């Protein structure tokens, strides 16, 4: 009969109280694990992804964060358009290694369909630094007017896209009308753990071939011509126009096709050296500019400065639940001591020292907290695993919920916590007088 066995028997003697107190610990631990894992996954996922581009050129209408989220994480909307010339200029800039155009707004079964170029598959990498294009079943689409598509792994799995399958896209995520054109899937990306998993990619040129987009472009062209005529008249009347009119200055000298009219959502920029980054971005900082250059790494860092205090609050709340559960164990264990005076006296009569009694009771507390904690870890990870698809879907965050050092740390902390919780009941237990409790009393 080891001390451990005695403690274990004692825990088993009170199944209901033991299970209830363990569940309370489990819930706290599950929450803590979920919150901490989510936060860490989000941090890692966002930071890793943000390294893909040195800068993103986006419309001045959009907030910098919006531009980053839409371009790199396929979340939210673009917040405006850029002149096509911006892309042409970036592509021809000698400092730029990759300029990747983006045009968004269409969806297939809820998954974003992103118009881009093959450069994206070279510029963006998975966490192991393998370019997306090297991580594909099949091939990358060809640039130009080829109705071919590459689907991310999750997007493919959830929409049922396979190589060779043809599909049409809708305008807007839900309830949008369906465009007439049809694309054929030529490649499926292997799971990368990046937001690319959730999207479907098509050549940006085909985006402009969509009939409805053309119409929209024509309408926009007409509206702009009307506005220009209007402004012309205003200028003639001596009016100053506001600082926010900004659509027309880049287009001169290009033929007015659809892509020039529609523009694009953003351009991802990878420079030949990150040293050039600040200088490159600074060039776009004129207050009359149509285009702003955003550094994704900066935006993500700022985002987490804001989010950080919130999720620290959640984490603290979760730990508080563990603390309250611990106090529950303390009270419950403390109250059992009164009823266990005879049992304790018998142990003492068998030669147990007060220290033995103390150890048995502390161990009971440790068993309750640690078992509850283990249960909580399993619960937490199971919960994460189950909500992972939703989290990827909704936030583009790939949750890595495997057991790891975090769990070991939590278990270590819980063992110490269980010990601390057991101190007071154990102290009460060791003071139980022996002689007067050796016979049945009340």
């Amino acid at each position, binding site marked *: 009969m080891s001390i451990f066995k005695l403690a274990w028997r004692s825990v088993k003697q009170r199944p209901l109280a033991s299970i209830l107190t363990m569940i309370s610990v489990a819930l706290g631990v599950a929450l803590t694990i979920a919150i901490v894992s989510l936060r860490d996954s989000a941090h890692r996922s966002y930071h890793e992804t943000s390294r893909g581009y040195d800068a993103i050129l986006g419309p001045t209408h959009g907030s910098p964060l919006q531009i980053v989220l839409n371009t790199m994480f396929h979340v939210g909307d673009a917040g405006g358009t850029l002149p096509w010339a911006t892309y042409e200029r970036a592509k021809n800039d000698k400092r730029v290694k990759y300029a990747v155009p983006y045009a968004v707004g269409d969806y297939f079964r809820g998954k974003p369909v992103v118009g881009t170029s093959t450069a994206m598959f070279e510029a963006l990498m998975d966490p192991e630094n393998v370019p997306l294009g090297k991580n594909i079943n099949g091939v990358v689409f060809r640039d130009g007017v080829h109705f071919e598509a590459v689907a991310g792994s999750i997007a493919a799995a959830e929409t049922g896209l396979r190589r060779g399958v043809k599909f049409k896209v809708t305008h807007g995520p839900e309830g949008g009308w369906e465009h007439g054109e049809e694309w054929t899937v030529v490649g499926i990306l292997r799971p990368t753990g990046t937001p690319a998993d959730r999207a479907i990619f098509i050549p940006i040129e085909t985006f402009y071939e969509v009939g409805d987009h053309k119409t929209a472009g024509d309408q926009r062209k007409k509206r702009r011509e009307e506005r220009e005529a209007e402004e012309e008249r205003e200028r003639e009347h001596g009016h100053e126009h506001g600082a926010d009119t900004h659509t027309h200055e880049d287009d001169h000298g290009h033929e007015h096709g659809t892509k020039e009219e529609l523009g694009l959502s953003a351009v991802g920029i990878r420079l030949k050296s990150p040293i050039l980054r600040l200088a490159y971005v600074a060039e776009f900082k004129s207050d009359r500019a149509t285009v702003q250059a955003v550094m994704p790494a900066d935006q993500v860092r700022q985002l987490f400065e804001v989010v950080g205090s919130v999720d620290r609050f959640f984490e603290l709340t979760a730990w508080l639940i563990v603390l309250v559960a611990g106090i529950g164990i303390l009270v419950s264990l403390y109250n059992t001591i009164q009823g266990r005076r005879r049992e304790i006296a018998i142990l003492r009569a*068998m*030669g147990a020292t007060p220290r033995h009694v103390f150890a048995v009771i502390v161990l009971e507390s440790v068993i309750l907290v640690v078992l509850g904690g283990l249960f909580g870890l399993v619960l937490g990870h199971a919960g994460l695993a189950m909500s992972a698809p939703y989290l990827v879907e909704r936030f583009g965050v790939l949750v890595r919920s495997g057991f790891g050092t975090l769990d070991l740390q939590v278990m270590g902390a819980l063992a110490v916590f269980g010990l601390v919780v057991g101190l007071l009941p154990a102290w009460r237990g060791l003071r139980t007088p022996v002689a007067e409790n050796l016979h049945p009393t009340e």
Partner: protein
Amino acid sequence: MADAALRIQNLKKWYPDPDGGRFLAVDLPALEVASGESVVVRGESGSGKTTLLNLIAGILPADEGTVEIAGMAMTGLSEVKRDRLRAQHIGYLFQTFNLLPGLTAVENVQLGMAFRPRRDESPKTAAEAALQRVGLADRMRHRPAQLSVGQQQRVAIARALAGHPSLVLADEPTSNLDSKRADQCMALLTEFAAESNAALLVVTHDERLIERFERCETLRAPKHEEATA
């Protein structure tokens, strides 16, 4: 007699009285029990029998006098050292058995050896042998509630003797049993103690028991002492 399993000299224990005076519950000038010997101590209810055994076992500290167990002084030791001496040398058989309800028979017997500072044999093997000796080989995995009163008594006897203690203390071991079972119980206890060469000290007010023992001591009636202001 250097090898006495128990030697008591001028042992005294007082309890405080509610009126502020004190009550001399145990007053024993001398008592020696040799290894392998059995002795019965007779006393009326309230004469301090249980208190005496608790003093010998070191569960209660003595106020005066000395108790030696196998040549080692129990009196004057710290609580922890008394616990260790008890764990190593004394088997205690209680009037109310005091088995732990959550443990099986064999676990209860093992418990009697669990806190020994020195062990020379596996407690499990010793516990199984002891249960076999008291005729409970087929009841090892039963819990106390699943045993008859007589069987519980035998588990308690096995627990007191399994570790081959130098001294076995038995407090009214037959008070819960009818006369036939009381006879069986006493026979088992005295034989088992003799087999392991343990000294056996039984306290009782039961006259029927006394005939079984060669030696019988009688406790003095406890005395009330006025408060000395």
